[in-house]
């Protein structure tokens, strides 16, 4: 395990040079967030509640989704796709190292400073919008929320890894990219709480694993779920995680046979 700790450490060191970039890119998402908050404020002037969300809950939903968006977001990780296409993967295959855990470590290393900055900015938002921010009343909510967050991060890493491995087969990934960048956030609840979609779509999205990335943790935080549903959610999510791990193993084993280690 020491090796993966060292990788996280190296990445933090390497990316600390880009702290300002983090700050700026976070500001880039914070400004649209402000616009969304003002929009919902206007909406709530005429309605007290939408599908069980009052004004505070709705605003909290968007603040949390902005902060978590990166921590539990799925992306097509360019380092994996370029490692595969440019033959850099060889460097990892040569050493007694799991490429998946290597990737998880670098992702964590890159995410730790980023999410700390994100948390800082989130707190600033909360302070300025304090009356609107939802504070859970049950003391168990926060621990459950944190567990759901950890599971969501794991799930996000798995999806990111799995989609990025498509580079073994695809010369060019714009179709995968479209799915990952547009449809996953939609199904995860980044754009709208899933309950706001038409019933049929909302049911469908809640049956898919992507809702565990964002919608489910925020639902827990907002105390909209009874404990029984939370535990059932955890169980289903863990089954997904196990299933994805199997899928990853199969995809990796087939992909690596196609890998041609170009260059050198």
């Amino acid at each position, binding site marked *: 395990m*020491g*090796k993966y*700790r*060292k*990788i996280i450490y*190296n990445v933090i*060191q*390497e990316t600390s*040079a880009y702290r300002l970039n983090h700050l700026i890119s976070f500001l880039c998402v914070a400004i649209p967030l402000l616009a969304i908050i003002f929009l919902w404020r206007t909406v709530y002037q005429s309605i007290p509640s939408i599908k069980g969300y009052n004004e505070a809950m709705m605003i909290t939903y968007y603040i949390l989704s902005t902060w978590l968006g990166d921590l539990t977001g799925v992306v097509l990780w360019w380092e994996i796709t370029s490692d595969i296409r440019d*033959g*850099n*993967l*060889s*460097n990892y*295959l*040569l*050493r*007694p*190292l799991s490429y998946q855990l290597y990737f998880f470590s670098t992702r964590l290393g890159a995410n730790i400073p980023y999410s700390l900055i994100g948390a800082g900015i989130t707190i600033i938002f909360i302070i300025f919008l304090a009356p609107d921010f939802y504070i859970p009343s049950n003391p168990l909510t926060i621990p459950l929320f944190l567990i759901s967050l950890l599971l969501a991060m794991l799930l996000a890493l798995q999806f990111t890894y799995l989609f990025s491995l498509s580079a073994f087969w695809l*010369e060019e990934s714009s179709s995968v990219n479209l799915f990952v960048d547009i449809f996953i956030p939609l199904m995860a609840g980044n754009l709208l709480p899933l309950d706001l979609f038409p019933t049929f779509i909302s049911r469908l999205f809640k049956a898919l694993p992507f809702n565990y990335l964002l919608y489910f943790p925020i639902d827990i935080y907002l105390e909209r779920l009874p404990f029984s549903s939370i535990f059932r959610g955890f169980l289903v999510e863990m089954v997904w995680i196990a299933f994805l791990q199997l899928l990853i193993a199969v995809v990796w084993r087939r992909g*690596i*046979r196609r*890998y*041609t*280690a170009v*260059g*050198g």
Partner: protein
Amino acid sequence: MIEVRNLWKIYRTYEKEEGLIGSLKALFKRKYRDVEALKGVSFTIEEGEFVGYIGPNGAGKTTTLKILSGILYPTKGEAKVLGFIPWERKAEFLKQISFVMGQKHQLWWDLPALESFLLNKEIYEIPSHLFYANLEELSSLLAVEDLLKVPVRNLSLGERMKMELIASLLHSPRVLFLDEPTIGLDVVAQKEIRDFLKRFNKEHKTTIMLTSHYVRDIEALCERVLVLHRGEIIFEGSIKELTRRYSDDKLLTITFEERVPDEIESYGRLLSRDEGKATLRVGRDKVADVARALLESYSVKDIVVEEIPIEDVIREIFLSLGREEDGEI
């Protein structure tokens, strides 16, 4: 130590179709081209041997090394390195080998080389005392002790190559694959790396397989060479045998008392001439006759007989192989 039997590698490359219709068509029937990079390669390398693996561009050298180090699956055939099947990539196997590519790097670009070394210490689970002892030995042999804390991106090509070598040797591999480790380096750095490798192989009994297009590397380091051409081994033996097999000639340099006679060309292939000196290329078995004839007919100051420089022999071998393919011979 290394056993290769009837190894084949066929690369399949898919042709890219233009435009949307093309990519839709490609979904159902993709056009491809097969490249036979290795066509039944077999050889054996013993423990502690330093073997040169040479051949013209595209012969399949890198492909072989990639298969033997486990990063590439062969199409068919068998290979055993240290008793392991390389492409299974067992941790026990990976801990005992290393593969250095002149054109690929494993070091973290933005961090000092030392950080990459420390990561390898963890990855290979090298005990601290061994790690620091190896680091000290390697960095002093390569004279880079002062550069360990400099970010890798600030190092020169030669310095970086030395760091790559260190990174690959810290775990004391028993088998080392080197793919053009001196490419792009100046003559001084080339020699430093050469000397280092020679010493390292002697002292640690590491089995080394080296490819290089610099004949000097091969000449200085390898007792035995394997010559690969278009995916097939066409020669196996010492460099001496290689030159003897492919070039039956010697070089005769004659210094005359007066100017070089005009009939000199009738004694052999004239390679160069100036005022009083000429160099002839003559068949090995005719050297004595030619020398005697010259001594009898002219007043000769000096005659020197030499082997043809290996560099020239190898160039000629590659050239003639190329020509055969093109049907010119």
